[in-house]
């Protein structure tokens, strides 16, 4: 079916192709509410998996044709589709009492919206959606303590052309032929960690902290008892578990099954039974 769609695109106008993707996104957006059924939200996630696959196929076609503007346009679709899917999964995970996983999906959705608006001017409206997601962050989740890792490296290379970043024409964060330019650090070493107000990646945060009864989760407020050998001493230094660094820069591109893990099978079988 997927190949068929790309093949059919030869008979479709560019406007019709855009309509196809916009319709798929719009349909899924109807389910971006807490009250919607988790099963229906899962179905939309799966539909978006397919839509994202199609956007990637179209992008590769445009790359093959050397059409950079169109390739970046489909990169924008990949980001926008991924953002909506992450937001849907945030709601599903919240309803399954999984706030930490839901938080990661909220952040993934915010990153997807920002990247979509960076990918192509046709996705400038995604910036407004990011504003809505930031409001959701303030209203649904308690305030988090963010962490930023600093490191030093000997040399920077460009992810687009492989040359030294200082010697090429590509700029970090800009799209080139359907790909974002990233800096590749050579021989990186840890330098410092700091608490920050506005991190680049909100997944990097204090996850839980020590109390007399165990580690208290910053989102659920549940306490996990200490393992053998772990203990809490009144008046001792503040100790916490932190998520220091996330290596996946594009979390919104992960498939529904990968994100939901074991929850995916449970939801899917329930949906099939229904």
């Amino acid at each position: 079916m997927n190949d068929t769609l790309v093949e059919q695109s030869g008979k479709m106008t560019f406007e019709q192709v855009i309509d196809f993707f916009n319709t798929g996104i719009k349909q899924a957006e109807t389910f971006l509410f807490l009250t919607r059924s988790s099963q229906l939200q899962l179905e939309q996630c799966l539909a978006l998996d397919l839509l994202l696959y199609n956007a990637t196929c179209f992008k590769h076609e445009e790359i093959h044709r050397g059409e950079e503007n169109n390739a970046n346009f489909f990169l924008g679709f990949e980001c926008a589709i991924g953002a909506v899917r992450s937001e849907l999964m945030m709601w599903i995970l919240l309803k399954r009492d999984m706030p930490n996983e839901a938080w990661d999906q909220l952040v993934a959705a915010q990153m997807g919206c920002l990247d979509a608006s960076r990918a192509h001017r046709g996705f400038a409206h995604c910036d407004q959606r990011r504003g809505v997601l930031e409001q959701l962050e303030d209203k649904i989740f308690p305030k988090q303590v963010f962490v930023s890792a600093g490191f030093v490296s000997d040399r920077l290379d460009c992810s687009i052309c492989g040359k030294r970043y200082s010697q090429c024409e590509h700029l970090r964060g800009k799209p080139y032929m359907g790909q974002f330019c990233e800096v590749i650090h050579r021989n990186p070493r840890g330098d410092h960690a700091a608490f920050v107000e506005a991190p680049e990646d909100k997944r990097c945060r204090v996850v839980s902290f020590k109390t007399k009864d165990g580690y208290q989760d910053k989102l659920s407020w549940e306490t996990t008892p200490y393992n053998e050998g772990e203990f809490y001493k009144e008046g001792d230094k503040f100790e916490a578990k932190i998520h220091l660094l996330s290596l996946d820069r594009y979390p919104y591109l992960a498939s529904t099954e990968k994100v939901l893990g074991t929850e995916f099978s449970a939801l899917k079988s329930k949906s099939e039974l229904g």
Partner: protein
Amino acid sequence: MSTEVRDYISISEKLKDFGVTVPNGLAILPSNLATAKSVDELRQHVESDTVRTLLNINKIPYVEIFDEDNQPSYLQQYGFEWFGPTLFISTGLLSQNPNVLSITLGIITNYLYDMFKEDKNSKASLDIIIQRPDGSCKEVHYSGPPDGLINIAPIVKELGRE
């Protein structure tokens, strides 16, 4: 938003101590030149290279004080903030080309607009060091919204006239 002006060490003396030629024109300096005790300790922000590319693309000449294989290590900090480089400019260059700094800052601002769009939490920081005819140096440190960067050009110009 904050813009701070402070005295800075003599760039020419410090670089001479490290056996490095003093730049004559616009240059990108390590961010910890004042405190580093040896060349090995020098650090530059990752975005120094972004600014080098922006200058190259826009055909704005600048001077490299270290060759390609001896660049100071790169410091990467992760925040929703753009950690810009330390730019060096002499009053001589400013009198020959009074607009070079405002053009450079304008180019950086445009790039940052594309990166952050209109996010209210976005922040940029950057240092500019101006060397005056008597060799003394002043540093202007900016930290605030990306679109405010452009406002430091007239401050630097004024410091050059003092």
